[in-house]
């Protein structure tokens, strides 16, 4: 049975189940969400107005047994960047959408009666849309509990907390993972878009799905075996990530002088040893947590973990490098347990780790609070933000806006989105990705850190300009394609270094759909996605002047290497010559 497009209209609370148009057939994940957003959303629309749409789409391989294939993409126009956004997430939603035959879920318009919020429940045959006043003002874990009480425990749940209800730009959309914890469509203020459509929670029925259909099951199985082996044999995905999680990066990025610290004043942090992955792994061992945990079923890498306090009580899971960097190095909290407590609170209210952490760094620069004052952070996030006090609204508006409010120059954003955990001045290939990706500063769009710092896919000196634009371009094209398959980004490590990995991935796509894609087809798919996104942004009013790293990085030398951002505009703009 063929997949369908599920289209919900929030204005009249109706839905349609449509055939998949021919030109969308071979697409999934980011390729599909960006194509639909570009085709159906007016680039000049207000992102929180009736003409924006939310598009959810599982990856091409989601719902199959393929290892690490459970990422779900969400596309829309971003209220944070004013451009197109694709944000993908682990958790259980992609697999369940795919098994149900939902190629994409498109949500349009805004209810006429905006006095309450709605709950959407998607089943194979129907979408029910009902008011849920009892959930309004509740945070994510409470919503999750209410859904688990009502449905089968495998039900997929996508929810927003109070920051999303209030359409704050730091808000995200949280998605249930296999252990009943949360992952998130983190970046770009997607929670605000869901809030603007007055949707509190979306659930997807996990009782009546069918297994996904495979055109050639034997070929699929054989390819998956090779692919899984490539993931397991690679030292990063097979050993490093399971043992230390992504937080193993704190030390290596710090040693390289590229760990943004105290609002991007230095590339080294005094707190590195306190907050690093090695220390975290020791704590987990002593306190009886777990270093390995997958964010979706079928993950064979398991970079996620459960982190407990000294008494052995649960503090956080999915405790990632980005979060620990943002609050530990960039905001200056030197206490891993307090960062974990903040992490769990942020999961509950549903705000993006990077945007929120960088916002606190800028707010500290402006004098709203002191660097390192984690107790005040906790108070603001648990009281001011949920209650929408003026301070809560200030923090909720993101780093770029806080910088404007406080009259600051050192504001680390590109396209108004916060720069993540790798300094563009000291890791220049990553800087090119931040500048040029249509997503606003985003590390996953083209992870040049791999080749600049980690010796994956070769080596290009992070402090020199040579080769960085081409590196970022190749990685961005490859990432756009991988984001369409439903694969998690860490597949990139074996893909960069193991020649068996990518062909096996392509074989799985071919065996799933009975088609004959080549490596060149996949590359041109990635290139097409990037161009589609870039065109949307140009029509939305963004220009080459938005493909820029903040000006202060051109004249403030970053210790310890005293690096500055020294690309000319022409050099950056050459990125788009393909």
């Amino acid at each position, binding site marked *: 049975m063929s997949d369908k497009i599920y289209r919900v209209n929030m204005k009249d609370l109706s839905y349609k189940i449509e055939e998949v148009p021919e030109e969308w057939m071979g697409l999934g994940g980011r390729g599909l969400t960006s194509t639909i957003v570009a085709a159906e959303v007016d680039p000049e629309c207000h992102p929180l107005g009736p003409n924006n749409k939310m598009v959810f789409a599982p990856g091409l391989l989601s719902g199959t047994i393929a290892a690490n294939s459970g990422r779900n993409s969400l596309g829309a126009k971003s209220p944070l960047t004013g451009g197109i956004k694709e944000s993908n997430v682990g958790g259980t939603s992609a697999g369940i959408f795919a098994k149900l035959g939902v190629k994409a879920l498109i949500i349009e318009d805004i209810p006429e009666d905006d006095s309450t919020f709605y709950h959407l429940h998607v089943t194979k045959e129907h979408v029910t849309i009902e008011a849920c006043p009892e959930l309004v003002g509740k945070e994510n874990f409470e919503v999750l509990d209410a859904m688990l009480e009502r449905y089968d425990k495998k039900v997929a749940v996508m929810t927003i907390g109070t920051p999303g209800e209030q359409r704050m730009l730091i808000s995200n959309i949280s998605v249930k993972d296999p252990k009943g914890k949360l992952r998130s469509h983190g970046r770009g203020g997607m929670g605000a878009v869901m809030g603007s459509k007055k949707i509190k929670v979306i659930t997807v029925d996990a009782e009546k799905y069918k297994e996904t259909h495979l055109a050639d099951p034997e070929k699929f199985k054989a390819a998956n075996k090779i692919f899984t082996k490539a993931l397991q044999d690679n030292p990063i995905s097979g050993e490093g990530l399971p043992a230390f999680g992504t937080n193993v990066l704190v030390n290596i990025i710090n040693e390289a002088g590229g760990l943004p610290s105290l609002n991007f004043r230095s590339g080294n942090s005094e707190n590195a040893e306190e907050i690093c992955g090695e220390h975290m792994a020791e704590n987990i061992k002593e306190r009886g947590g777990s270093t390995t945990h997958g964010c979706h079923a079928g993950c064979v890498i398991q970079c996620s973990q459960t982190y407990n306090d000294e008494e052995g009580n649960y503090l956080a899971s999915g405790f990632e490098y980005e979060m620990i960097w943002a609050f530990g190095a960039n905001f200056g909290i030197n206490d891993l347990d307090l960062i974990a407590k903040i992490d769990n609170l942020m999961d509950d209210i549903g705000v993006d780790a990077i945007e929120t952490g960088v916002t606190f760094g800028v707010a500290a620069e402006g004098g709203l609070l002191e660097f390192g004052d984690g107790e005040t952070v906790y108070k603001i996030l648990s009281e001011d933000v949920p209650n929408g006090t003026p301070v809560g609204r200030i923090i909720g508006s993101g780093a770029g806006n806080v910088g404007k409010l406080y009259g600051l120059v050192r504001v680390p954003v590109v396209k108004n989105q916060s720069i993540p955990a790798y300094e563009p001045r000291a890791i220049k290939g990553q800087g090119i990705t931040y500048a040029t990706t249509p997503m606003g500063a985003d590390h996953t769009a083209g992870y040049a850190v791999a080749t600049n710092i980690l010796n994956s896919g070769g080596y290009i000196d992070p402090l020199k300009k040579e080769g960085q634009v081409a590196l970022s371009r190749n990685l961005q094209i490859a990432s756009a394609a991988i984001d369409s398959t439903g694969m998690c980004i860490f597949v990139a*490590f074996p893909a960069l270094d193991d020649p068996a990995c990518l062909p096996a991935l392509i074989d799985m796509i071919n065996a799933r759909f009975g088609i004959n894609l080549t490596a060149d087809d996949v590359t041109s798919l990635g290139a097409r996605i990037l161009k589609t996104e870039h065109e949307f942004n140009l029509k939305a009013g963004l220009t080459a002047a938005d493909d820029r790293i903040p000006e202060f990085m051109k004249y403030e030398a970053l210790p310890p290497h005293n690096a500055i951002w020294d690309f000319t505009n022409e050099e950056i703009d050459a990125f788009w010559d393909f």
Partner: protein
Amino acid sequence: MIEITVKLFAQYRADHFKLEKRVYPKGTAVEGVIIETGIPIERFPIGVIMVNGRHFQESHILEDGDILSLFPKVGGG
């Protein structure tokens, strides 16, 4: 003799040290330090070598006062 600050990371720390100042003959290359410390490079091959925060190869000759950081293959994102 030269004094080198040796820093070990990730799996290399188990049964070894985090940071030590160690003394070597003049002209010692990174490789010499790797062997002398006895870190388990067979089980966890060298991923990244940094001297004073810059990437180098095993053949790089160290100088007095250098900070040498040794990593197995690590990654994240």
